[in-house]
């Protein structure tokens, strides 16, 4: 099977666009990605579109109404926080299989403000507060507290994740928030769900990101190899059974399974990585994923953030974009936006936040909710 490449990729600045529509935002990102590749919508043989909140409203087709109704295959996908990455991966699979040479993947979301999580029950019973909590901050807080129970991880260590990612965001003009924070400010912010304060929660924003995916033959034919980024691995897993399945999704196991497959298929280990964009939907999540992605040994995530190993200039910089904590987390766009971040570093085009000499990077998204399940996607990208 052919090697598959990203030949164009970009994102709109994440923010709030109440006067714009989902298809408009998606089309804008798609045009940016096409411009990056020097191609047009008529060159795209298929469209893979990720969106969560309008999953039943044919977002991909509506994007083509904005861009040009070329009549190609459109696949709309929804997969919790892994939605954008799932759309990208579906496009990649189609190219890898030889079905198409050049396809477009778009991830787009318009978000409301406030807490995510619960949805009402038809019998009127309000579970929140009576059966624990269904909010996203509470779910990821409990994952962090479990880590603290096992390894003694502290509130301060979790808070340092937010300080680091906010710092990185000051160098990313496309991040929603680009504001430096102090450890004290993060720890003294409003407590949302112990130990996550408001500054340790990702920001609900609108956003879109897009990628042009090509086979090696097409990339060479179109003269796009010079800026192409090779996809070394693309893996997806769903939550496996664990004894806790009916209480809380196990974001650790689903990530570990996906990561294991990705390293295996890329033929590398975590030591080969120069940077990582991982799913920091909450500060507590980033620390557990250091271990889930094999960036450190079991129980060492706390000391790892203390030592600054994941800050720009450290051993393995994590979330150079500012992460979801500062860049923002438009659910359907996130999984392509993190590919954009890593690809930009591999191309040496990340400006002030550039990880110097980056050759190999990993992206990770994981999503899910109480009583439903989880989805994880991991990609490994390599500079050509």
């Amino acid at each position, binding site marked *: 099977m052919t090697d598959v490449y990203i030949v164009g990729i970009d994102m709109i600045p994440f923010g709030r666009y109440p006067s714009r529509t989902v298809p408009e935002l998606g089309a804008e990102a798609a045009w940016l990605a096409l411009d990056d590749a020097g191609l047009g919508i008529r060159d795209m043989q298929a469209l893979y579109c990720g969106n969560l909140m309008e999953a039943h409203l044919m977002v991909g087709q509506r994007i083509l109404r904005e861009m040009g109704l070329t009549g190609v295959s459109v696949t709309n996908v929804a997969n919790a926080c892994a939605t954008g990455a799932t759309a990208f991966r579906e496009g990649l699979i189609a190219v890898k299989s030889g079905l198409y040479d050049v396809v477009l993947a778009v991830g787009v979301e318009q978000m409301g403000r406030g807490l995510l999580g619960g949805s009402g029950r038809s019998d009127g019973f309000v579970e929140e507060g009576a059966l624990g909590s269904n909010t996203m901050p509470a779910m990821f807080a409990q994952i962090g507290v479990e880590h603290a129970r096992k390894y003694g991880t502290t509130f301060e260590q979790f808070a340092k994740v937010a300080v680091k990612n906010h710092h990185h965001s000051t160098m990313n003009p496309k991040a929603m928030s680009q504001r430096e924070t102090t450890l004290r400010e993060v720890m003294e912010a409003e407590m949302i769900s112990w130990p996550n304060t408001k500054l340790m929660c990702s920001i609900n924003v609108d956003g879109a990101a897009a990628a042009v995916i090509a086979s090696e033959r097409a990339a060479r034919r179109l003269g796009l190899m010079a800026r192409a980024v090779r996809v070394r691995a693309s893996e997806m897993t769903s939550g496996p059974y664990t004894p*806790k399945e009916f209480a809380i999704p196990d974001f650790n196991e689903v990530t570990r399974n996906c990561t294991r497959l990705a390293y295996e298929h890329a033929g590398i280990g975590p030591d080969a990585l120069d940077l990582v964009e991982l799913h920091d939907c909450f500060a507590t999540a980033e620390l557990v994923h250091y271990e889930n992605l094999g960036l450190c040994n079991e129980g060492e995530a706390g000391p790892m953030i203390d030592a600054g190993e994941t800050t720009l200039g450290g051993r393995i910089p994590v979330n150079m974009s500012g992460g979801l904590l500062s860049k923002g987390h438009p659910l359907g766009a996130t999984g392509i936006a993190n590919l954009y971040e890593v690809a930009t570093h591999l191309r040496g085009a990340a400006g002030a936040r550039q990880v110097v000499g980056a050759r190999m990077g990993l992206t990770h998204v994981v999503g899910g909710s109480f009583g439903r399940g989880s989805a994880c996607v991991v990609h490994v990208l390599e500079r050509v």
Partner: protein
Amino acid sequence: MCPEISSESSIARVVPAVPFLVVAPDGHAHLVGSRCTDCGAIMPGRRIACAACGTRGRLESIQLAESGRLCSYTVVHRSFPGVTTPFVAAIVNLDGGGTLKGTLTDVTPDPRSLPYDMPVEIVYRDSGQKAADGSAFLSYYFVPSRRGHKND
């Protein structure tokens, strides 16, 4: 264990808040689960197939334990509109298998008073919410163990 609801008449108008909470005609409440006779997995509720191994038709109905240990928790300070905070959302590993999420009550909602692995019990209480027909929703709650724990 009997629900902590006083009058005889109210018992007849109780609706379980979750499908795996069963209230017997005599008012006794318990949590039903399934145990896979192939792999031993224990899951809440009645099921056709085992979620762990996929085996069909080999599940036996069991009663879930009413004691366990605090696996993880969070103190929820910000919740959906109308929900009283703070409260403790907890994950509890039941003695004998199975894990449930729920609200840990009768505690101070402060991490300093919530030791990891603390023994807890399940109680059944009127949630204070009513169904459309006026029935009271009965739910299960975690409370600190009053008996001490068998492994202590």
